[in-house]
């Protein structure tokens, strides 16, 4: 998650080894036939994407309407707000403020605690794909990027993923040293949220610049290589019971899932011969967007709540 490339696993459980072995033995002709059959009958599902977009738009709309219609359900913006009176404060913003101001008042602590609990429950980076407004526009920009890439007009220039961790540390140090929440000045999440609620401003130019960079240069660059918010929530996600689970058995290792994923490195386990167990939970950097669940033609990727699958 902090950016080191996942290596080939050295320890593979016996059960997984067996499945890997079986797959190697399967007659290639048979396999191809099954694959072709699946492809022919495939229905492109957008179930999770639709649910996610609806949630994301609804949450942001709730902010906007609370202000414009004065219904007072969700007041404030994504950096900090009150949901029918309860304080909610974005973890990363709170962290920046605490580092810069070096003083914490109770409301700040309560809000941070509530949000921490909320996202431990819902899976950390779930914030990214289900709430963050930048995610939605970046997802649309990604579509343009992919169209252009298909015509070979642009190509995805990958960047070192360790950079995100470096940025996280840098922005924390900057806040501490300068006494200003330096990151907040350029956080597209905050800028977009405020623009939606309080009206657009020049700051949107920065967001536009990021999107242009992502379309013509590097796919999803901000979220993949820069955003400290994503990393903060990623760390929270380590504890989370809600996650995507991979089942080795039926997987064809075609990698459809890795093509759609915002953070494809978390899906390295689906590469042939990599899975360490018959079932592998996908790591905390996963944003629980469900795109891979939708994309997987064999149903090998599914949402699960840790502990609950045994109960059911």
């Amino acid at each position, binding site marked *: 998650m902090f950016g080191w490339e996942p290596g080939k696993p050295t320890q593979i459980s016996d059960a997984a080894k067996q499945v890997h072995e079986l797959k190697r033995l399967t007659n290639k002709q048979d396999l191809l036939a099954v694959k072709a059959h699946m492809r022919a009958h495939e229905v492109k599902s957008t179930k999770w994407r639709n649910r996610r977009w609806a949630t994301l738009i609804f949450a942001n709309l709730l902010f906007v309407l609370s202000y414009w219609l004065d219904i007072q359900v969700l007041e404030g913006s994504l950096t900090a707000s009150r949901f029918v009176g309860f304080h909610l404060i974005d973890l990363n913003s709170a962290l920046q403020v605490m580092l810069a101001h070096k*003083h914490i008042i109770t409301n700040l602590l309560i809000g941070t605690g509530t949000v921490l609990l909320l996202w431990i429950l819902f899976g950390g980076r779930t914030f990214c794909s289900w709430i963050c407004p930048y995610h939605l526009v970046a997802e649309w920009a990604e579509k343009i990027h992919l169209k252009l890439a298909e015509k070979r007009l642009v190509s995805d220039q*990958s960047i070192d993923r360790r950079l995100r961790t470096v940025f996280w540390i840098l922005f924390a140090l900057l806040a501490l040293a300068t006494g200003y929440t330096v990151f907040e000045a350029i956080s597209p999440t905050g800028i977009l949220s405020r623009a939606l*609620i309080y009206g657009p401003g020049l700051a949107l130019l920065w967001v536009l610049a990021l999107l242009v960079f992502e379309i013509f240069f590097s796919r999803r660059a901000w979220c993949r290589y820069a955003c400290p918010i994503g990393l903060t929530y990623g760390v929270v996600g380590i504890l989370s019971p809600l996650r995507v689970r991979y089942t080795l058995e039926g997987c064809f290792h075609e990698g459809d899932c890795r093509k759609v994923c915002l953070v494809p490195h978390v899906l390295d386990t689906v590469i042939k011969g990599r899975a360490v167990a018959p079932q592998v939970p996908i790591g905390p950097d996963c944003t629980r967007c469900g795109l891979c669940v939708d994309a997987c033609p064999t149903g090998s990727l599914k949402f699960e709540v840790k502990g609950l699958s045994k109960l059911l």
Partner: protein
Amino acid sequence: MSDQRPPAPPPSPPLSKAKRQTNRRRFIRTALLTGGVLGAALSGFLPQIYALKKRLRPPGALDERDFLASCIKCGQCVQVCPVQAIKLADLVDGMGVGVPYIEAREQACDFSCDAVQCILACPTGSLTYIKPDFLPVRAGAALAAKPILLAKEKDAEPTLNLKERIGVARLTRPEACLAVQGKGFKGQSRGADFQGRMRHMAVDRWKPIKVADHPYDVAECDLCARECPVKGAISIETVFAPDGRKRKSPVVHEPCVGCGVCEMICPVEPTCITIEAREVWKA
């Protein structure tokens, strides 16, 4: 960097030339993105260095540095203000992107909320009634007594729970002041198009209405003193001009909190009384 690395240890074969080249390109791109993002972030300091704008903050704001450090840029203060006096700053404000300010000439804080609602809304203590111990109060910023809100003068608790001023009003262009010239004023103080709203004690102490909906007709201009929401903050006094002649003039007193109503209401264009943001009281 990656192509200057010492030869890899035996188990992993040395990188091929093509691989090394991709690695180097990738390193350059990484540096590019780092530079871009950090450059953008640090450009936020430029306005600080040149101290471009001294903006008026909402009531109860901490001193500027601490205010910028602690504000989480959520806009909850914006949401509770009944006259929408509070705005959020834009890109040109550097580190202050998303931080609230008041443009008094356009819309002053007139305490229409009857208290200081924005302080209550703030989740971080950027706006606060009581400063934490480690933050000193600048000399002259503290108010001698809690200011009395004229609209609540007859209530059980007539004061604003405010301990520090956010600025002080000053007659910046006395020569243009109608009172100083002995002139009166008739009509809408800021013209028919002015959108600003205000709680006029003379109309209804509860309801802010458009300034344009409340025309004046006074023999001697006293609009700033007449509409000031704080008791004893400003009055029209007889003063002596340099040549010894008697003149009328608005005089600002210690209870002024710097809310900006006088600046908003002054009919002279440009205004001849302004709030000096973060200015302190000097006797």
